[in-house]
Each structure stands twice: as structure tokens, then as C-alpha cells.
């Protein structure tokens, strides 16, 4: 992927995806929003497994976010440094989630916990 950007960088810098591209991304975002809404009304938690509703909603949200970051925010054409910082932010948030939850999910019954 990396070499692709380096080549693309110079000539595609000004145009990016062009008007049709922007509207296509916009379309994906709108469809994603509507889909999120309707999927939430279906009881996936019973049909599939508990938490499935949230999982699907988050998957759609991640897809939408990726579209915005890559195309609206032009990261697709950017240097590796920008890719890295975009990923690093979410990676560090994941660290915060994971290491906080490793406490909450493994607490044994005691004074503070039922």
C-alpha cells in the first residue's frame, strides 16, 4: 500500500477523488446512517448472540469513519506519518479501554464488588 501512495502523491494531490468521488462517499455515509437506524430495531441480540446489535452498529460506524478519514480527510493520499498518527490515536484509546477493562472484567467478589 505504501508505495502506491508515494507514486500517487504528486499527481493526485490536487484532485483527490474529484466531485463524483465525494458524492459517492457521501452516499455511503447516508446509507450507513439509515442502515444503523434500521438494524438497531431488529433484535440481533436474540437472533445471533448478546451484544450483536452493538457490534453491528460499531462495525457500520467504523466503516463510515474510515470513509471520512480516507477520502474527506485525504489521508489516503498522505504521507506515512499522517497514516501513523491517525492509527495511533485509536490505538492509544484501545490501550486505555483494554487495560481499564482488564480490571473491571476480572474483579472478584469482595468489598467493592457484588
Amino acid at each position, binding site marked *: 500500500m505504501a508505495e502506491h501512495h508515494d507514486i500517487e502523491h504528486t499527481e493526485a494531490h490536487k484532485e483527490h477523488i474529484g466531485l463524483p468521488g465525494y458524492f459517492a462517499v457521501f452516499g455511503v455515509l447516508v446509507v450507513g446512517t439509515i442502515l444503523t437506524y434500521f438494524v438497531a430495531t431488529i433484535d440481533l441480540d436474540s437472533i445471533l448472540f448478546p451484544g450483536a446489535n452493538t457490534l453491528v452498529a460499531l462495525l457500520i460506524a467504523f466503516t463510515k469513519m474510515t470513509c471520512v478519514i480516507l477520502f474527506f480527510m485525504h489521508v489516503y493520499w498522505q504521507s506515512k*506519518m499522517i497514516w501513523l498518527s491517525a492509527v*495511533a490515536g485509536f490505538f*492509544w484509546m484501545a*490501550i*486505555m479501554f483494554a*487495560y*481499564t477493562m*482488564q*480490571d*473491571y*472484567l*476480572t*474483579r*472478584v467478589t*469482595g*468489598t*467493592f464488588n457484588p
Partner: protein
Amino acid sequence: MTYITNGFTLKSWLLTKDHKRIALMYLIAVSVFFLLGGLYAAAIRLELLTPQSDLLESGSYNKVFTQHGVIMVFFFLIPAIPAVLGNFFLPIMIGAKDLALPRINLLSWYIYMIGGSLTLYALMQGGVDTGWTFYTPYSTTFSNGYVMAVGLGVFINGFSSILTGLNFIVTVHTMRAPGMTWFRLPLFVWANYATALVMILGTPVVAITILLLALERVGHIGIFDPSIGGDPILYQHLFWFYSHPAVYIMILPSMGVISELISNFSRKKIFGYEFIAFSSIAIAVFGFLVWGHHMFVSGQSMYAGMVFSFLTMVVAVPSAIKMFNWTATLYKGSVSYDTPMLYALGFMGLFLIGGLTGLFLGSMGLNVHLTDTYFIVAHFHYVMVGGTVMGYLGGIHYWWSKMTGKLYSEFWGKISAMLVFVGFNLTFFPQFILGYQGMPRRYAAYPEELQVLNIFSSAGASVLGLGLTLPVMYLTHSLIWGKKAPANPWMLPGLEWRIPSPPPTENFESTPVVTWEAYEFGEENGLDLDEARKRDLATV
């Protein structure tokens, strides 16, 4: 025309975008806070001379140690090296005219001043008594102090730190002079870069944490109140997610200074450059994975405690790598014992003790015995004072001639460096024993059998206090009566020694082209220091 003589009006300082002037403004502000925090420390040590709570009653004592902590941590230790020395020398060391975002740099100083003033205002109104950690539910529900005002001050101050970090990251990425590759960067730059990463990744979390604390104090929703379903430990998680890495914000830049000093005053290329550079980054990254070691006895899950304990051992490795490499650099180097080097050697001794006792505290079983005793107080003072303050003072002495164009008295410099070292050990080593014997921290009174060691500690504090006052005097003295400094008093190869002292506003006549590695003592700059002294090039 130098950067100092480029305009004499107040406006030319307060609206300056010159990184060097902003660094001096930071130097003054940070020194004022250091003095204030030191006065609180003096009050603490005076109270602890006697076992009874006589000089200060418990309530005032709580306020005094809280304010000592808040001021020292947030307004001295965190900004000291990056905002003063980093601000001044990072652009010069990479061959740039300024930081990439000078206006943001000035903004960060103003934010620091606003946050600081707000905190000072709260202290004058009556202060806080929560401890610098603002633990819930005491801070949200019970404390009558000015928690909101101090919290807001710390919140605002956080953004000054974020902006400094942001500026450093951008500058290192885009402002390096031609030929200044990543692996030619002086290690001080690497250290500040790693610090900047921690600043932008960690500081926003403490900002939001303090915001939550403030909202809880106003609204009483109970998210930190276990009786209605909240969790006080959540506060600790969020707080330490920043505040453990904050320890690295304090110590990493200092390690950067030490790398400079050890290599330059051994007149030898540093041993294991890449290892030191990458260990800074490793510390910045792994430092985020260990915060739970502050919470072993607070109700955190035992299993989480094990993970955090293990990772704490892991994060000691990169620090140890640095220690080994510094030692290897000293080996067979032509070491000269100038004042900055005395501080650097002091750092190595004190940080070694501070770091190793950190491992004691990081092992869960021992921690149960030692936590919240004077052992922990001694440990983090060995890291914060023995590490950060020693590095800061070493750096200030090292670069003083460059910053001001004047030479300080080397005689008094050495005296004070030794006083600081002796006074520091006398103050804090007895506290290890006191803590091991079970003296809890944050109490104004203690059992009589512990008095002897406490007297040692207080006596040491006065020696330390003297050692820290002397530099203020002889450095100020040098500003007016000091000898004019040559461009390169120590005959060193770094970029900052190739420009006049003090530097011109634009730093370099023309953009330098770097063709040498860091710490390369070649023919023209690797002169024997003794020889140079004989030719009166260096009179320090």
C-alpha cells in the same frame, strides 16, 4: 545583534514569537513556582521536626503538602525541561530558525500563566487539601478546599503542555536542517520528541478526568460514588492513565540532558546511540501500560494488578539500557568534572536508587507493605528531584553561557552541585528507612521513636535548600558581572556551540548543512579541553 538585544520593550518580550525569548519567559515563571513549591516543602520539613503536630495542625498540613505537590508536579516538573531548555535548544540543535509553530508556542506560555495564576489565586484563597492526586470521593464530596479552582488551573495548564508537545513533534518532523537525519539528532532531541508523544497522548486524558471531577463536584451524579452505583476506582484509572506517563514527561527530557552531558564531558561519542534513542520511544510507549501499579491496594482486580506489576518490571528495561550506555560512555572517556557533569553523575547515582526502589514498589506483594508510607515518598523524590531536578540544573549550567552569553562562577557551581547531592541524600535516604518502619505519608504527627531520622531528613532539607539557593545567586550575579562567554567554551561539536553566545534572533546566519554524526569529536571540535583551557579559550 543577539536575540536579547533585539528589542528592549516589554511588548517585544510579551508578544515575541522567538522560541529563545519564550524559553526565558518560561524560565522565570517556572523558577517562581519552584521557589513557591520549595517554601511549602520547607514548611513540611519544619513541621516534621517534632513528632507532635505543633507548627501546623492537621488541616493546614494537608493543604501544605497538597500545594507542594500540585505546584511542583504540574507547574515545575512537567514544564521545566521541555518548556525552558527544550524550547530554547531543540530548534537550534536541529538547525532550525524557530519552532514550526511560534505563535502556538507563545500561546502555550500564556495558557501556562493563566493556569498558574488561577492555581495561585486558589492557594491564596485557602488552597486544597486533597493531595495532588485529587482522589475521589474525598475531592468530589467531602473536601471544603478550592478543588474547583485548582482543578481548573491544572486543566488549563494541561493545554500548555499539549501545545508544547505538538510543537516539538511538528518541529522535529519538518524543521530539521539539510543533512540532519533522524540518527544524527542529538539525544536531547530524541528525548524531547518522546516526551512530546506522551504529552499529546496522555495530557488530554487528565484534562477530561479533571473535568469529570469538577462536574461530579457540582452535580453529585455519583459516578465516583459506590453507594449509588459509581466507582471511585474509575477516577484512579483515568487519573493514572495520564499521571504515570507524566512521570516520563518529567524524567525523559532530563535523561536527554544527561545523554548530552555524559557524552560531551567524556569527550567521546556516546555508546549505543540507537539504543538510547529507541529506549526513549520505548519508555514513552510502555509507560502507558503500567498505570495500575498505583492502585494495587485500592480495590483494583488482583489479576489486573499482576499484569500491571509485570509490565512495570518491563518498563524498567529501557531505563536500564540508558544507564548501561551512559556508564559505557564514561568508560575510558576523558572525563572532566565541570559543574554540569557533576550534576550528571549525581543524576546517575540518584536515579539508580530511585529506579530500583520503583521496582520494589512495582512488585505487588511488597507494595502492600510499602504503599502510602515514606518509602514511596522517598522513591519518587529520588526520581523527581534526583532525576528531573538534577538534569534540569545540569542543563541550565551546561547551556547558561549559550543562553545568556555570560559565564558563571565554576567554583560556586561545583560547591552548590555537591551541596545539592549531599543535602538531597540526607533528606530522602532516611525516608526510605522511615517508610520501611511504617511511617505513613501525609500525616503531621508521628511516633516519637521515628524522630531521629526525621531530624536527619529536615537537616538535609536545609542543606538542599542552601544548595538550590546558591545557583540563583551566582547565576544572577553572572548576568551582570559575569565574564563574556565565548561561542564554544567547552569545545563541543553540537550545532548550538557553532553559533555565537547568545545566539542571534534567527539562530543561524544561513541554514546549516549537517555533515557529521552527533557527538563526533573531530579534529576541529574534539580539542583536548585542558589544552583549550591553557589557551584561555575556556575560562569556566
